[in-house]
């Protein structure tokens, strides 16, 4: 199998009012293509920090991150932006859609930045929304959509350009349990049908249950890493 | 107190808004000072040159300066007026239009008979000397540069002055050119000649008679009032004219400048106040949720509005004080040293002007500027503040 992510000896230390906080205290971590990984652990365990380091949003204090064979430490801000644009799809906990754009335009936006031609863009965006069962909502703005619908648009935006990796930080934070279940079924389907590598950071057991591999972090270190027979399968 | 803290919650915005007010205050105070100073300079230069603050004349002389509209018993009147505490200086003058000739060339000019000593104290014309010396005594003449040129007259030349006496007879005097002046004012340089008063009186068949008693007052704040008071003490047939009546062009030039300056100041104030309204509109929108919370816990809308007004007051006060502090150094400079005016005649707009343009200070004029902004700010805050009244707590809390 191809290795998508490799982290060697990651540490990340913040200064919080002058007090050093060790968010990551030496993490070695690898993800193969097609895996569905759940990073779990209590608040402050470092799961979000690890996710952000992988996505190039945060830089580790020491250690190396390789995404698709590229070392992130050597990349400039601008190159990191391109990496996020092309190789990584993000889903944030509070959806973070562009408020002035419709569902379809939000999905198209990434492809516009990538320079995909208009006709192809539209077609792919429509197809993506259809496949996520929100095709009829295409012309609504985020403010006119429910939380679950917004999160679906966010997922559509994240995967429409076929990234090698989908990162989801607390995707269920603002959703009720029924919607969470629908959403996770969707991610699982994407993982299986498209062999998309997915990493979620969550402390919601309902989310963890869907992952094929569960990594537990405590105080910035990996406490357990196990492949699970996940309940949904 | 809450209002004061609120201001510091958005420090950058407060500083920018206060900075805008301060900038406008600084600018307005500085230009107001220059403006007041230039009026003072213009008035001083104009009154110092010839007219004085107040002139006593025959009641018809101002409208129709005829030789026969004269003041009798001049010496006694000079003595009694000069003794008044309000009068700092006094100088008598006689005046007539006459034809000046040197050899074959002849030109018309205004002839002034002056008391050389008194004239040197009261008028800056003797100081505008460009060649020769000022009058002392005897048959001497002090004439304008252009007139001298037109006559082709050199220092030491004999000038014949021909005019008509009070009864229509020919008045003639022969004087020696001792000095030439240059004021830069075409009318004076082209057509004015001064001779000693006694020479003038002898030549024009006058007794102890003059046409003007020129006075400088000890204080120039209420020239019109003092002039009216003086007028009451004068013999019948004589009147006292303040400089405003003698030189309406100066009064009008100042009035015109005041009007245009006011227009420009208003525009500037308007633009600054507009940006303050802007700031308050943003403040209210941004804090809709906070206001909703305050309304929800039972705060009366009017108290919220009052809070905004107090914020506006602090903001304007801050900007005003900052502006005053910033204005301090430039004001001290302009009032104390002033801008040298050599080679900047364009600023003086054709009026006689001192060598330095200095600022003037008037406490109320200066304080009025920050006050305008404080009042303006209250108004600026009130308009968007009205929105608070129509705010529904529940909706406000939900506002994004």
């Amino acid at each position, binding site marked *: 199998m191809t290795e998508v992510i490799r982290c060697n000896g990651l540490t990340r230390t913040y200064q919080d009012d002058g007090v050093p906080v060790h968010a990551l205290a030496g993490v070695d971590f690898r993800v193969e293509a097609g895996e569905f990984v759940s990073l779990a652990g209590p608040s402050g365990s470092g799961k979000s920090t690890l996710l952000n380091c992988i*996505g190039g*949003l*945060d830089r580790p204090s020491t250690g190396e991150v390789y995404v698709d064979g590229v070392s992130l430490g050597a990349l400039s801000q601008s190159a990191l*932006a*391109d990496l*996020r644009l092309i190789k*990584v799809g*993000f889903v*944030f906990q509070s959806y*973070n859609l*562009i*408020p*002035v*754009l419709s569902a379809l*335009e939000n999905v198209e*936006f*990434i492809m*516009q*930045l990538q*320079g995909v031609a208009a006709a192809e863009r539209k077609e792919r965006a429509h197809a993506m929304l259809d496949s996520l069962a929100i095709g009829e909502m295409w012309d609504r703005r985020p403010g006119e959509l429910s939380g679950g619908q917004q999160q679906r648009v966010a997922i559509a935006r994240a995967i429409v350009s076929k990234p090698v990796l989908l990162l989801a930080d607390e995707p269920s934070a603002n959703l009720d349990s029924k919607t969470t279940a629908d959403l996770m079924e969707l991610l699982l389907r994407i993982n299986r049908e498209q062999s998309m590598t997915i990493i979620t950071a969550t402390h919601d057991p309902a989310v963890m249950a869907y992952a094929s591999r569960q990594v537990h972090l405590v105080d910035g270190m990996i406490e357990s890493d196990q492949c699970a027979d996940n309940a949904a399968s | 107190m809450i209002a004061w803290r609120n201001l510091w919650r958005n420090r*950058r*915005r407060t500083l*920018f*808004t206060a900075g*805008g007010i301060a900038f406008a205050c600084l*600018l307005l105070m500085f230009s107001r000072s220059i403006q007041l100073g230039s009026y003072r300079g213009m008035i001083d230069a104009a009154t110092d040159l010839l007219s004085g603050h107040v002139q006593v004349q025959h009641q018809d002389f101002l409208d129709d300066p005829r030789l026969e509209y004269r003041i009798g018993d001049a010496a006694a009147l000079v003595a009694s007026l000069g003794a008044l505490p309000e009068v700092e200086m006094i100088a008598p003058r006689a005046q007539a*239009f006459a034809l000046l000739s040197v050899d*074959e*060339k*002849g030109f*018309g000019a205004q002839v002034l008979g002056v008391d050389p000593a008194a004239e040197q104290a009261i008028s800056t014309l003797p100081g505008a000397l460009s060649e020769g010396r000022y009058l002392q005594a005897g048959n001497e003449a002090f004439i304008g540069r252009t007139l001298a*040129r*037109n006559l082709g007259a050199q220092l030491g030349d004999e000038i014949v002055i021909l*005019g008509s006496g009070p009864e229509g007879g020919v008045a003639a005097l022969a004087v020696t050119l001792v000095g030439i002046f240059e004021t830069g004012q075409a009318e004076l340089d*082209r057509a004015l000649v001064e001779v000693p008063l006694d020479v003038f009186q002898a030549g024009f068949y006058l007794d102890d008679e003059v046409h003007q008693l020129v006075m400088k007052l000890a204080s120039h704040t209420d020239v019109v009032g003092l002039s009216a008071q003086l007028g009451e003490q004068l013999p019948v047939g004589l009147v006292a004219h303040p400089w405003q009546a003698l030189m*309406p*062009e*100066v009064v*009008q*030039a100042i009035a*015109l400048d005041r009007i245009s300056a006011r227009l420009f100041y208003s*525009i500037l104030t*308007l*633009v*600054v106040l*507009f*940006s*303050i309204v*802007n*700031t308050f*509109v*943003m403040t209210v*929108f*941004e804090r809709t949720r906070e206001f909703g919370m305050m309304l929800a816990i039972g705060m009366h809308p009017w108290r919220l509005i009052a809070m905004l007004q107090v914020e506006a007051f602090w903001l304007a006060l801050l900007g005003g004080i900052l502006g005053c502090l910033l204005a301090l150094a430039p004001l001290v400079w302009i009032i104390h040293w002033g801008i040298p005016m050599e080679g*900047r005649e*364009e*600023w003086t*707009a*054709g*009026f006689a002007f001192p060598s330095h343009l200095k600022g003037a200070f008037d406490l109320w004029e200066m304080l009025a500027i920050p006050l305008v902004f404080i009042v303006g700010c209250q108004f600026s805050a009130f308009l968007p503040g009205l929105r608070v009244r129509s705010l529904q707590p529940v909706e406000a809390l939900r506002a994004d």
Partner: protein
Amino acid sequence: MKIPLRTLLQLSWRNIWRHRRRNIMLFSAILVAVSTVVLANSLIRGWQVQMLDTVVTSLNGHVKVLAPGYLDDPSIERAFQLPGGYKPALAPGQLRAWTSRVVVPGVILSERDTRGVQLVGVDPADELQMSFLADAQIEGEFLASADDRRVLLGAALAERLNTGVGRRIVLMTQGSDGRNRESGFRVAGVYRAATGGLEKVFVFTGRAALQQMLDTQAITELSLRLHSNGDRAQARQQLQQGFSGEEVSTWDELQPQAASMFEFADVAIVIWFSIMMTALAFGLINTLITAVMERVRELGMLRAIGMQPGLVILQVVIESLMIVILGVALGISLGVFFVQQLADGIDLSQWAAGIEGYYMSTLLIPSLLLSDLLLVAALSLLFGLLASVWPAWRAVQVQPLEAMRR
């Protein structure tokens, strides 16, 4: 890097409408500032135009030919003659009117009083194209021809002399032989100029009549009025070629004080513009920073999903510039509208005596130059650009993670 301009424009346009209340405020602040700048600019420019007109029509013309030494000693001895059938040779389209005059200092006497004046011998038909007489109110008659042996007096002078239309006055001046001449003239008319100063100085009569009195064929000046003030230096140069001994001067050389005031008007426009723009900038930057800071989160997200920082700045700048452009465009239009409302002029006759020193006339007509409008537009946009780049740049300095946590 390919810039997805359409996407940015679309995003900007929608964002403007999303925050329309604030943007309307911002827009109106620019509108007020720009329109008042245009108005003030047109008033100053109007004053400048008028100043030029006043100076040129006060017998100066744009360009004048004088005998050497005339300025120092303005007598008929410093005169010259034009060749028969002379016509000024200028580039086509430059010359508006021209005339030759005899101007000498003299004395005017009535039964009542005596005054020193400038005696001006003119060709009346030419003068109507050249000088302030064209706009002056005339009581009685205008001079009929260059041979007219009557005089035209200013109202202020006529009053002082206690004379009037049809009455006789005596003129005295020095003839070409250096001896004084005296001659009686009848008053044809009395003129009322915009400002009293001219009325007291100039006494007009027929050119040939004055030449006859002075016993000369010569003139003291050739005065030219041009269509455009900008041509004067060139006109002067071309004119100089036709004269060997005579001196050719432009109005600004003859009237240095007026010339420096004329230049001062240019400076005043720039000073005023800078003051207004600085005052506006405080509010502008304030609003733009707030607008950007409010969206730090959104901008952080855009960068998190892979938008280049440069593009984020560009998007914010486009957004601000759209408002600024709209504000400036409408501000200029509103300013032009104000100016049109004042096209009939502002009556200053209340201050008639005071305006002479400023070379004004009693009616101030605002004047707009296209170049001024372009300057205002260009500088306002530059101000707007500077005021919007800075907040956008600041916003991008915040790391996306931190921005999204806000």
